[in-house]
């Protein structure tokens, strides 16, 4: 836009809207609410991402942590492409650490 308010083709730009005080106040208030809403949305997305990545979420997204809970007759369906072996919890998350410790103790016990 040139300084004289004329487009390249010679067409005049429309006059900018002149808001009265009440309209300007309403617009500012609306902008403030919109800004706060956007901030809230960004915060919530960040929060959910943080909770999910930190692994503290205990719903079905981390499905194999729930597999051995009482009252659950069947393991939840595996994601496509995952075999049952892959769904076994890692050794350090085994539900029976006491049993594993007992095995080690037996192996390390001196023969009589």
């Amino acid at each position, binding site marked *: 836009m040139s300084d004289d308010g004329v487009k390249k083709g010679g067409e005049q730009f429309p006059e900018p809207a002149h808001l009265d005080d009440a309209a300007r106040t309403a617009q500012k208030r609306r902008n403030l609410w919109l800004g706060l809403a956007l901030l809230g949305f960004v915060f919530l997305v960040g929060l959910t991402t943080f909770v*999910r990545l930190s692994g503290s979420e205990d*719903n079905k997204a981390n499905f194999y942590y729930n597999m051995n809970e009482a009252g659950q007759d069947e393991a939840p369906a595996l994601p496509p492409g995952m075999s049952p072996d892959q769904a076994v919890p890692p050794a350090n998350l085994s539900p029976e650490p006491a049993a594993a410790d007992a095995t080690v103790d037996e192996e390390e016990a001196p023969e009589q």
Partner: protein
Amino acid sequence: MTDAPATPEKRYGTAGDYVQLLKPRIMMLVVFTAVAGLIAATGVTGQSMNPLMAAIAVLAVALGSGAAGAINMWYDSDIDLVMTRTSTRPIPSGAVPREEAIALGMIMSGVSVLLMWLASNWLAAGLLAFSIFYYGVIYTMWLKRSTPQNIVIGGGAGAFPPVIGWAAVTGNTPLDAWILFAITFFWTPPHFWALSLLAHSEYEKAGVPMLPVTHGAKATRLQMLVYTIVLAAVSMTPLVTGLGGWIYGVVTGVLNLAFLYFAVRVWRSHAGDNGAPGADQKLARSMFLFSILYLFLVFAALIVEHAAGLHFPVGGL
């Protein structure tokens, strides 16, 4: 058809006007039933959900409900202007421009579905998206102005929240979740027709084919009674599946007797007829108000049982 809408007087909308656009009273009931579904799912399946994620999921349901309300008010602003009851809503009163209402509705729809997906799973997010589409498009744009069964079929939109709450926790929707759906679904006709008996002349003026307008008040009162009987039966099925226990059974049993009492009295009255006595009109209004209390207490009983460890099942499939 509707009368030509008059040009609304120009005034600047406040935050309160935008809140009204989201239909906060409906939102409260939607949130409450979603929380009930969420808590019942936790109690029945033993699966848990991170409390923070659960709170965000409930917020997503609230935003989705508000989005559907804004889309509804955007589309219905012409008939809202004609009816006295709705003429003070933000768009017909000139506080909020139509284009801002639809923009708000669309943006909130996207935000709510995205938040639900982030906080829970794609199934709950998909159900939320579908329920917004159901209310905003299937009910508002299609059914409402085309069939007297509008609120029967459209009632499905309001019945989704407990299913969404359940899906957010478990990632699936078993029979118990759909029983909660059915309770809200069969509750909607007697609830809404009790109101439309009082306001049928307004709907007639606006050209909305509500049952009392197309089939008369007598047929509507009979339909209300039939749906209340079906609701009474459906609302007791949680006792069979084990979803509801003794507390639920007693509370819902008493509420069903009271709801049936209202339905029979309204059926025998002249509520909605031309020149109906004031007492009959008052009776229809009492039934409308009681129906809100009914749904609140039925779901509250479920919440109390499953959240406070007071669930003592009568039966179980």
